[in-house]
């Protein structure tokens, strides 16, 4: 027998019981050749280019799914940031572009299309400012378009004007989508040091240094890691790190195999594999549960940040050994609404935004899917975004904020989206005002890279 019984059963257990799945295969498509002076022709070009490359995206993914018995939860598309590909449009034009992206996504059968994005960490072009103005309208008038804006980087510092504009955009998006619990905000993320090959929405876009078209993928598997940790029993932390590394190694290998097969069917280059542990609202698919299995009583206890740091690092190390194409975010995600364990911890008051902020300094993303009161001041939202960016800028890592100022809701209320986005209790934010600080505007200069104490 070429494989041991235990090995085969381990794989079956992962895929059938522990929810190991490929979270997303995301096709990146460059739209840089789609600009035309006539907006109608631009739209036509965008639509036909997306359909040309992605029309078999879903069926090929399903084919590979059946072949290997590993499910692919989401099939998605990322395009060149529209603010770069269509620099020159005004807000109205960008809304039209969002609508055509939405239609193309619907017609090829993907649930989200990323790339309604801008990179403004240092400054804006005239058109980028227009695009940011268009975001709330684009998100409220489309279903599948997701948007991201990078407002800070270690090389450029923090563009506080952009932070303020994004705080306003978040607030406006919440208002325009108030009928659906401000769902537009779940599709809008503000970044620092954004990776250009991230396959996960809402931050996915096809970076300007990427090829014409490529296939990126994100794996998931908190359930697999959770069971491995539980089975490891009472071992010391070095041994526990080994367990996590070995498990991540295996799921990354399987993930890369799937990604390469899908890319081969399309006849396009395989880009990267993002080895993030991404939770879903399904029971047992939770990062909070992994942290609890590691030994903290609940998320938010002292020691949570240390446990998360170790988990995140071990995941990266296992993944890097398994594949030479690791990219994207790669780490552990801690979205509140998408993780049953996090939701429970938030309901019990075990975690606060402040603790979550500390946790984001050691894990792969940031303050993710956090509902805050609808009457939160714009300047407070800007302050939270700026804090998150500061963590990213100083530590040379990606951070982000996906905040939902739930329109008309107060602490203790819920936003409920169902499906992958889950539900979240509205959390308290500090009443103290950062208004005088953030309204100064301008840019927080790039940090020094030595004497880093």
């Amino acid at each position: 027998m070429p494989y041991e019984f235990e090995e085969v059963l381990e794989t079956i257990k992962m895929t059938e019981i522990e929810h190991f799945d490929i979270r997303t295969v995301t096709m990146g498509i460059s739209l840089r050749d789609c600009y035309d002076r006539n907006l109608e022709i631009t739209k036509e070009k965008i639509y036909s280019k997306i359909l040309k490359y992605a029309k078999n995206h879903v069926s090929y993914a399903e084919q590979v799914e059946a072949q290997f018995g590993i499910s692919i939860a989401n099939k998605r598309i990322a395009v060149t940031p529209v603010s770069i590909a269509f620099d020159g449009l005004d807000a109205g034009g960008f809304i039209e572009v969002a609508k055509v992206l939405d239609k193309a996504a619907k017609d090829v059968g993907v649930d989200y299309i990323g790339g309604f994005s801008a990179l403004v960490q240092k400054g804006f072009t005239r058109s980028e400012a227009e695009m940011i103005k268009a975001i709330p309208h684009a998100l409220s008038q489309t279903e599948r378009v997701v948007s991201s804006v990078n407002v800070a980087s270690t090389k450029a510092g923090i563009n506080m004007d952009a932070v303020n504009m994004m705080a306003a955009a978040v607030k406006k998006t919440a208002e325009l989508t108030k009928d659906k619990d401000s769902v537009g905000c779940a599709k809008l993320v503000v970044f620092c040091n954004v990776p250009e090959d991230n396959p996960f929405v809402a931050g996915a876009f096809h970076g300007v240094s990427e090829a014409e078209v490529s296939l990126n993928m994100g794996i998931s598997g908190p359930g697999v890691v959770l069971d491995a940790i539980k089975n490891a029993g009472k071992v010391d932390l070095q041994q526990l790190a080994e367990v996590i590394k070995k498990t991540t190694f295996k799921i990354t290998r399987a993930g890369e195999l799937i990604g390469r097969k899908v890319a081969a069917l399309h006849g396009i280059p395989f880009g990267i594999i993002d080895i993030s542990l991404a939770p879903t609202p399904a029971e047992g698919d939770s990062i909070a549960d992994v942290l609890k299995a590691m030994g903290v009583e609940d998320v938010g206890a002292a020691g949570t940040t240390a446990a998360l740091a170790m988990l995140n690092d071990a995941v990266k190390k296992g993944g890097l050994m398994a594949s030479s194409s690791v990219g994207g975010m790669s780490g552990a995600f801690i979205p509140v609404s998408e993780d049953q364990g996090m939701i429970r911890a938030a309901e019990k008051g075990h975690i606060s935004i402040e603790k979550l902020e500390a946790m984001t300094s050691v894990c792969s993303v940031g303050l993710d899917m956090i509902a805050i009161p609808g009457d939160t001041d714009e300047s407070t939202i800007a302050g939270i975004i700026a804090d998150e960016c500061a963590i990213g800028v100083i530590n040379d890592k990606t951070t982000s904020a996906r905040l939902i100022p739930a329109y008309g809701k107060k602490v203790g209320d819920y936003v409920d989206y169902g499906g992958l986005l889950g539900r979240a209790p509205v959390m308290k934010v500090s009443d103290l005002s950062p208004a005088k600080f953030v309204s100064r505007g301008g840019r927080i200069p790039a940090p020094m890279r030595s004497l880093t104490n």
Partner: protein
Amino acid sequence: MSLSESELRKITLEAIEELGENATPQLVKEVVEKAVRKLEGEEQRPEKTSSDSGRVILTSFGMNHPGIVAGITKALYEAGCDILDISQKILSDFYTMMMVVNISSSKQGLRELQETMNKVADDLKVKIYIQHEDVFRYMHRV
């Protein structure tokens, strides 16, 4: 079919190359039609369903009762599959079996075979999983 600008450019270049200075309306029409056919051909690539090495791993488990192996192997035989290796164990009342099967000579593709075996699994009241061999090789062999 609607043509994008880059496709039109491609067709034009092909026409120029083929006709040079001898272009007549009839000739241009022929060349353009040929180029369009070629483009359509490129678009309609056949769906590839075969699994490269042709080896799949069939795993089955459930409560033990007579006839499970017979049922599974009969279905595999009827599908034209070649069994390369079998390993089977009984733990108290629980049975597990794992097979390496070559399906390259089978008249059924992987998907069809999975459907056939799902029916067999329902009849026998066991679970049957069929996965391409590569997933095990990638996960467990460095």
